[in-house]
């Protein structure tokens, strides 16, 4: 099915156990260039753990995962981020006291060339880099909500929930990664906001051609509307994969969500 596309990420029997309990018990996931994958499963099934493992926050206890044919097992989060995997977080991890601009700019950390000594002695270089990055931040914000540009220098903590999520998505996009991991983008939103969020995710797709997105979501309307294929996991194991229809009608998936028929 995906033969014409290049595979940029795959995991092999990825495992992690916390004191004997397997949060991931052998996950094999392939990600191809330029696709949107929905990752579903009941609470505690290991979705966020999967994100935390492939971004290096947790260290896998077994298996491997490869990105651009390089084994990233045991690498630190900052090394993995440099390779081109970026993410948002389930409970927003923005720096609430910092401005919108600052929060997006840190997403471009890997593109910075004006470091410690440039800060002290080469202000010209720094100034032109700040200008360049600022333009990019403004560009990104304009995609989602042009009104946010007026708040560019305000603390991000003052924004409503959906705009915070947008800033977080901008931050994840800013470094032009190959893979973006979205962890429950619609969490804590009203149904109307969720609809807006779905449109936003499509905007990410249309803006960044080469990016692959994995979405973890509980809201099935989001999954069905934006993802091209869906993988369902439970107890750290894959139970189904395919299109949304195939997966949502899969007996094991129904059982995981709704329980066994008596």
């Amino acid at each position, binding site marked *: 099915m995906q033969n014409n596309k290049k595979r940029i990420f795959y995991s092999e029997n990825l495992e992690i156990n916390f004191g004997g309990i397997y949060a991931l018990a052998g996950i094999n996931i392939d990600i191809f260039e330029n696709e949107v994958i929905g990752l579903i499963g009941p609470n505690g099934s290991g979705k966020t753990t999967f994100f935390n493992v492939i971004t290096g926050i947790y260290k896998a206890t077994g298996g491997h995962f490869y990105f651009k044919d390089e084994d990233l097992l045991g690498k630190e989060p900052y090394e993995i981020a440099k390779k081109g995997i970026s993410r948002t977080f389930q409970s927003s991890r*923005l720096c609430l006291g*910092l401005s919108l601009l600052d929060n997006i700019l840190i*997403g471009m950390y890997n593109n910075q060339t004006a470091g410690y000594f440039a800060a002290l002695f080469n202000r010209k270089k720094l100034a032109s880099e700040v200008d360049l990055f600022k333009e990019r931040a403004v560009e990104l914000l304009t995609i989602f909500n042009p009104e946010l540009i*007026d708040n560019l220098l305000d603390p991000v903590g003052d924004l409503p929930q959906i705009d915070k999520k947008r800033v977080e998505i901008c931050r994840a996009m800013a470094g032009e990664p190959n893979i973006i991991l979205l962890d429950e983008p619609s969490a804590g939103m009203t149904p109307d906001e969720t609809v807006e969020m779905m449109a936003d995710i499509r905007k990410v797709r249309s803006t960044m051609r080469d990016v692959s997105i994995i979405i973890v979501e509980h809201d099935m309307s989001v999954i069905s509307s934006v993802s091209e294929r869906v993988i369902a996991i439970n107890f750290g194991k894959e139970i189904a994969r395919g299109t949304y229809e195939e997966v949502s009608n899969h007996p094991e998936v129904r059982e995981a969500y709704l329980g066994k028929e008596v």
Partner: protein
Amino acid sequence: MKRSFNLIDFTKVMVFEVAVFFLVMFFLDIESLWILIAGLALVVAMVVSTKVWERQFSSVRDFFSANRRTVIGILIVLLVLYPLVSPLVIRQNTYWLLILVQTGIYIILALGLNIQLGSTGVLNLAVAAFYGIGGYTAGLLSLRLGLPTILTLPIGGIAAALFGILLYVPLYKTKGHYMALVTLAFGLMIVLALDNTEFTGGPQGLMSIPEMKFFGYSFLTNPGGLNFYTNYYYLMLFLVLLAVVVSYRFYNSWVGLTLATIRDDEVAAKCFGVNTNIWKGISFITGNFMIGLAGAIYAHMIGFISPQNFSFSESLLIVAMVILGGMDNILGIILGTILLTILPEKMRVITEYRILIYGILLIVIPMFRPSGLLPFKPRMYHFGNKGLGKRGDYSHAK
């Protein structure tokens, strides 16, 4: 967007600053208890009123920040003129000159700590220890080896930075409160070690450390009939300005942004490529260099240092300056430092109530200004005249 010179604004700023300049000098001169209390009440009232009339004050603040170059320029000129004018106004001029120089040392200490605590969120409770390391290094080098001041000052800073690297090896494996605990232990260890080492003079410390000398010019000479502390005053002014410029350039750059992200959310910083351990180390070492440099100046100026100078309570005082002034806000920290060094001296008149009033102030200020006198402000990325400016600048992008 280049601003054109505006004579009216310039005059406004100058009149204001000159008025404040003389008011401050009169305040330093006053010895009458009641006028002093009235002055203190005025300061407290101002702190409270900035909270109550926040909107009105913001327009005043906007005026000054729009004219920031003028404000800074006139301020520097006034500070340069101070030693020439003050003997005419202040009766105990020499004493206050010494206090001002000490305030300068504390400003460098507080700015050094601010890079660690304010910008990066690394609570260093061993500030006084690094201060001492700088002081003892400079003292020993000039006493035992006769090294010139131009070398002992930077070596004092470098020694503190090197000890900082040594401490950072165990430090980076800890987090949050435990990190503070490790630095606390280190601070106590250093004082104990100084107390018990023959080489550093034990509890008696180092005595008769040579005064500063630059290219044959001794800092004990009285320049043109002025007191010799004037030498130290100008050196301090230069070094404080340097420390402010360095702090500001860090704050207003990718470095400041990176450190602030580590402070606010370390996991997020890591996930966007920041090697947090390296950056925390860089911040720790940079701060320690400034702290050590301040120690070296202190040793040369006072000529006598002992372990008591660098005890834990000294660390707490410097931490209080940073927190009270406003974390990661350079101007706030300078104000906080001035408040905590000048006021106790000023209140010597009211001997027995001095500590009480000092304590009350320490309680009242955080009540009305919970994030310090001047709280952290979003980074504006100013470069010379060119800054990001007000939000309206972006309307074209829509």
